[in-house]
């Protein structure tokens, strides 16, 4: 992998590219930056390949690199005003209001807490793997997840919320 063989890179992209990009996008909420993070992650993986001792840990290792790149980008873009694309005629969506308010509640979380939520609920990493990816302890991850849910619940049911929860589609 270190040599930068295009075929190896292609395998990595097919196996993990979409998930890495998804994690980056959900942390940054910016499609172009998410693509940048995906490329940075693969470049870092090429450079650091010798440090990966357990091949079975490739996926959490890649997600850890991606999370670090995304959080680094987020620190640098602290002054960005986030824009949301709102179609004038949105595509049919069973629960558009829930999607919007859930994402708003997620976006309101601190960056590291949001990354923890994304790795657990999107990438479906176990608490121990999230801890490894975030460079922290499992207990800290559990605490962060608990606080994140409480914060989001407060955000969703607070006075600023205008939408009532509809039935959430199960993925």
């Amino acid at each position, binding site marked *: 992998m270190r040599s930068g063989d295009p075929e190896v890179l292609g395998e990595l992209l097919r196996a993990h590219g979409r998930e890495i990009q*998804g994690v980056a996008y959900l942390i940054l909420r910016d499609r172009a930056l998410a693509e940048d993070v995906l490329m940075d992650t693969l470049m870092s993986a090429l450079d650091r390949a010798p440090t990966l001792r357990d091949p079975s840990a490739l996926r959490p290792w890649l997600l850890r690199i991606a999370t670090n790149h995304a959080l680094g980008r987020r620190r640098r873009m602290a002054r*960005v005003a*986030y*824009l949301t694309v709102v179609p004038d005629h949105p595509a049919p969506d069973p629960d558009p209001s829930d999607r919007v308010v859930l994402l708003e509640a997620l976006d309101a979380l601190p960056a590291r807490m949001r990354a923890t939520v994304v790795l657990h*609920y999107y990438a479906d990493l176990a608490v121990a793997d999230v801890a490894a990816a975030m460079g922290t302890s499992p207990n800290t991850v559990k605490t962060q997840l608990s606080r994140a849910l409480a914060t989001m619940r407060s955000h969703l049911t607070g006075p600023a919320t205008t939408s009532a929860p509809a039935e959430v589609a199960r993925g």
Partner: protein
Amino acid sequence: MAEWTEPMIEDGLRAVLRREADALPLTVTPHGVLARRRARGRRGRRARLALVAAASLAMPLSLAAGFGFLGSPQQPHEPTYLTVLARGLSTEDRGEASEHVTDLGLVLVAPDGHEEPVIQVPASRFAGWKTTREYALSPDGRWLAIPLQDALAGDVSPVGPALGLIDLEDPDRPWVLTDGRLVPVWAPDGTLWWWVDGQPRQVDLETGSLSDDADPAEAPARHTPAPAGQVDARTLGAWEVASTAWAADGGTWALVRRDPDTSDVSRLVHRDRAGVERWGPEFAGNTEMGIRSDALVMAPDDSLAAIRGHEYKSVSTGVVAPGRTIVVDVGTGQAFEHTGWLVGFVRSDAAAGWSMTEGGSR
């Protein structure tokens, strides 16, 4: 009305996050990654060369770094145009009743949000006049046009009875004043246009007079408000950029985009306002708080769009908070929000000669 419970939030997160992320196309290729890796290796040498070039242009190093001359991964290219904001305009902007204007400070803003004060015009320049906030900077950075109102008359109309032209290259040159009634606009060719009685009139920069024989049809059509898709009557203006129509909604804080292939219209909405934008404009009638955008300005090369807006603290008294400006990279859709009144865009090579000098000299 049902309550959100934590299990509901967990289920919702799993469904919504998956749907959001999986909707993104995967466009990165192995060859793209390898090309970027090779480019990264060259970046260090290019950054050192850029430092020397920036220093030779007498540009402050902090400014050079802010504008990406150091090869920042986020902004690897030197921008052609930079945003200029105005600060410290008048006591009114601080919520006070006086209409006298204090110093006018111009600030250069880099694409990544870095700011650099560049020109300070002292209050004496404004004696007897009250500035409006309809600033217009010529693309070459030489002329600043400001509609003026008679400070003593206490004119509260939204447009001024006179237009002030400041020559930023010549601090001793008297202001060039001319008459007019609407917001001036700089055309990409460097000519200044002013709408009088609904007709565009060209301003003679040397004499400050309005041309009598200019053909209104010569006014750049790109600066004339025009319909763009389903944009409503509050549209501030519309521009075609690579067949994509861009416009700003004057009633809300949104940049409107029409896709050239599908003709679908979408709005880029400030996230803080997204919940409001979905259900209608926030500003309505005699409210005590509100927000309104009042101008859309595009860089002459169409690379950047800026929406100028302000928040009303009290509509009844007309007191407004300091201006807010959103600058959007048209290519990526990435946006930055700044505090300050939008003045316009200036070519980066012209801005390289600006310095923090009183009187507007450079």
